[in-house]
């Protein structure tokens, strides 16, 4: 088991970069795909409700 000391060294920068790179890649699809219709529709309805007195 790795040491649980509170001063245990941080993850090496190279590994840290790889982890973040992988995270960004698994999020990439969600960040680039279209917003689902029901959420776009909800925003539209809220705007219209605000616009009407």
């Amino acid at each position: 088991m790795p040491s649980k000391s509170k001063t245990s060294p941080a993850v090496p920068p190279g590994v840290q970069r790889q982890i973040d790179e992988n995270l960004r890649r698994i999020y990439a699809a969600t960040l680039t795909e279209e917003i689902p219709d029901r959420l776009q529709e909800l925003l539209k309805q809220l705007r219209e409700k605000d616009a009407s007195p």
Partner: protein
Amino acid sequence: MNDNDPRDQMIVHLPALRGFALSLTRNGSAADDLVQETILRAWSSFGRFTAGTNLRAWLFTILRNCFYSDLRKHRREVQDSDGLFAERLSQKPGHDSALAMRDFQRGFEKLIDEQREALALVGALGFSYEEAATTIGCALGTVKSRVNRARKRLVELLDLKEGDSIMPVDAIQSAVTSHQTSLHG
């Protein structure tokens, strides 16, 4: 359109809000339900938003509060994961890189909530430590330590070493590209 009206800016933040919702719920439809609840909650609270302050952190905080208050209300376990982002990446089964990526996703899902959300914000969504601390409502040092512990835990779970490649970059790149082609093609 008014740049200063947060109502007009909301749409800009929806993709990242969905990403964050997915990392909290680990379930695609639950994530969109959560974003929907966040939109409604934000809409009724815009009166309390201070113009010129960080809208992204404000929205993410609302989403987070919705998630944790639902969790308490229903006193239920977090919903079964439908494989976090798994279905969103089109990969050939049995392919080495697909297996490695699945391992990585499973590892990420196994992180405890407070570590997973900190790493999602800072590592994946590009939040600064300060912004993440504002969003979560904790001290700067707490975020740093959670992110650090999350990375360390992933290293343990995946048995990563300096110099190891989690997966070949070109393989994941082609998986992402083919996913995007299938979405927009």
